[in-house]
C-alpha cells in the first residue's frame, strides 16, 4: 500500500514537472522603452507597459508625465513575448500589443506609440415582431484593437497584425420568434459605425450611420 502511494506521488511529481516548464533565465534581463502620446502628440501619463510570457508578467512600468516609459523585465525561457500597452489608470485610451518571437532579443525600442481615445458601441437588434422575413445585417466599425509584430510573420502568432482597422461584422436573423441580439464593440472616439440591413435576399438595402461621439454609445435596431 505504501509503495503504491509513493509510486502515485512520484508519477504526480513527474507529470507536474512536465507541465510546468516555465523558467526564469539566469543572468538575463529585458529592456523596453517607449514614448506614449495621444493623436495631438501630447504625452500620456499613467499608461502601463508590461512584458508577458503567456500571461505571466515578467516586468511592468508606467509612463511618466513626459509619456516616457522605461521597463526592465526578467527573461523567461519562452519563445514568444507580448509587450502590452494598457491604460489602467485613465481608462480612456486604447491599448496595443507588440509581439516578438525572437528569444535572443533583449532590447525593445518601441518608439512613439500613439493611443486613441476609446469609444464603445452597445449594439443590439431587437426582433419584437413575428415577421417571417429574414434580416440580413452588416456593421462596419473601426476597431480599437492594435497588434504589432516586432518580428516574425502571421504564421508565428495566433492573432493577425493590424491597428485600428475597420472590421465588418455580418449576421442574419431567420427565426420567426422574437429575439434579442446584443454586443458591445470597442471602437474609436469620433469615428462612425455604419449599420446596413435588408429584409430578404432581394430586399432594399438601408444604411444607418452611427456617430461614436461619446465614451459609451447605444444603438438599437428594433423590428
Amino acid at each position: 500500500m505504501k509503495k503504491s502511494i509513493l509510486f502515485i506521488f512520484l508519477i504526480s511529481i513527474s507529470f507536474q514537472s512536465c507541465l510546468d516548464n516555465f523558467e526564469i533565465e539566469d543572468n538575463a534581463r529585458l529592456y523596453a522603452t517607449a514614448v506614449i502620446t495621444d493623436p495631438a502628440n501630447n504625452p500620456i501619463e499613467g499608461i502601463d507597459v508590461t512584458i508577458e510570457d503567456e500571461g505571466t508578467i515578467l516586468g511592468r512600468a508606467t509612463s511618466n508625465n513626459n509619456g516616457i516609459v522605461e521597463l526592465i523585465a526578467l527573461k523567461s525561457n519562452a519563445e514568444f513575448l507580448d509587450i502590452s500597452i494598457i491604460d489602467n489608470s485613465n481608462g480612456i485610451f486604447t491599448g496595443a500589443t507588440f509581439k516578438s518571437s525572437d528569444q535572443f532579443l533583449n532590447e525593445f525600442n518601441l518608439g512613439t506609440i500613439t493611443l486613441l481615445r476609446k469609444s464603445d458601441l452597445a449594439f443590439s437588434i431587437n426582433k419584437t415582431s413575428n415577421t417571417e422575413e429574414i434580416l440580413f445585417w452588416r456593421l462596419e466599425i473601426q476597431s480599437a484593437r492594435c497588434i504589432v509584430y516586432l518580428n516574425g510573420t502571421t504564421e508565428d502568432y495566433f492573432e493577425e497584425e493590424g491597428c485600428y482597422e475597420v472590421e465588418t461584422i455580418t449576421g442574419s436573423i431567420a427565426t420567426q420568434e422574437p429575439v434579442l441580439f446584443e454586443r458591445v464593440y470597442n471602437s474609436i472616439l469620433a469615428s462612425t459605425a455604419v449599420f446596413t440591413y435588408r429584409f430578404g435576399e432581394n430586399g432594399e438595402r438601408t444604411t444607418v450611420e452611427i456617430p461614436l461621439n461619446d465614451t459609451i454609445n447605444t444603438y438599437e435596431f428594433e423590428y
Partner: protein
Amino acid sequence: MNLNTKQTLFFLVLLFPFVLSAQAIGDLAKNDKTHKVISFSLGTFKPIAFGDSFINDNTESNFGVEFNAQFNIIKKGYVGVRLNGFGLDVTEANGQRLYDRSTVSSISILLGYRFLEQEKYAVTTLGGIGRVNYSNKVNGKRFNDNGTSYWFQLEGEFSVSRYFQIYGGPELRLDRLNIASADAINSRVNNINYLMLHIGMRVSLWNNEDTNKEKEDKDEEN
C-alpha cells in the same frame, strides 16, 4: 545565506592542519617575534548600496553574516578566505516589483596587512576578490545572477584577551555581475556598489617559537 555546506566543511578541513601547527603561547609574554598564526572571525555587517544601480534603487538590505579564516604568512601580513551572505528585499516602485527577494552569497580570497599594531589595538587593511551569487525568488521560482566581487576594507581590532578580539570597520565592495541585457541598462543592473559596516569577534592562535627559544636560553643560563 546560500553558502554550500560542503564547501564550508571543505575549507574547515583545510584549515585543520594550521590549527594543529599553531601553538598557543598561553600566559607567556609577547616579544618582537610573536605574532598571530591563524585567526577565525565570525561577524555581521550592514550592506548600504550606493550609486546608480537597480539594487540601490529597488531593494532594502538586511544584516549579513560573515566568516573569515586568516593565516599569517609574515608577521603582519596574512592571506585568508571569506564567506558571507545577506538578504535583499525588493521594494515596490509604482506598486510593482520585479522580483520578491534576493539572497546574496560570496566566497573570496583575501590579503591583509596590519599596518598599526599595539598591545590592545591594531589597524588592518584588507582586500579580496571572489565569486558572488544573487539567488533571486519570484512567485516561487528561483533564478540566479552571478559575477565577481571586489572589496577593500579598513578594520580596527581590539584585543579583549590574547586569544579573543573584537573587530569592526567599513568596507567598500564592488559587485560586477554578468547579466546579459541592453547597453542602456547594462551598468544599472550589473554594477552594484556597497558600503558595508562590519562588526564581529575573532579567535586567534599565536606562534611560540621565540618564547620557547627564550625559555631554552634561560634554562641554559641556569
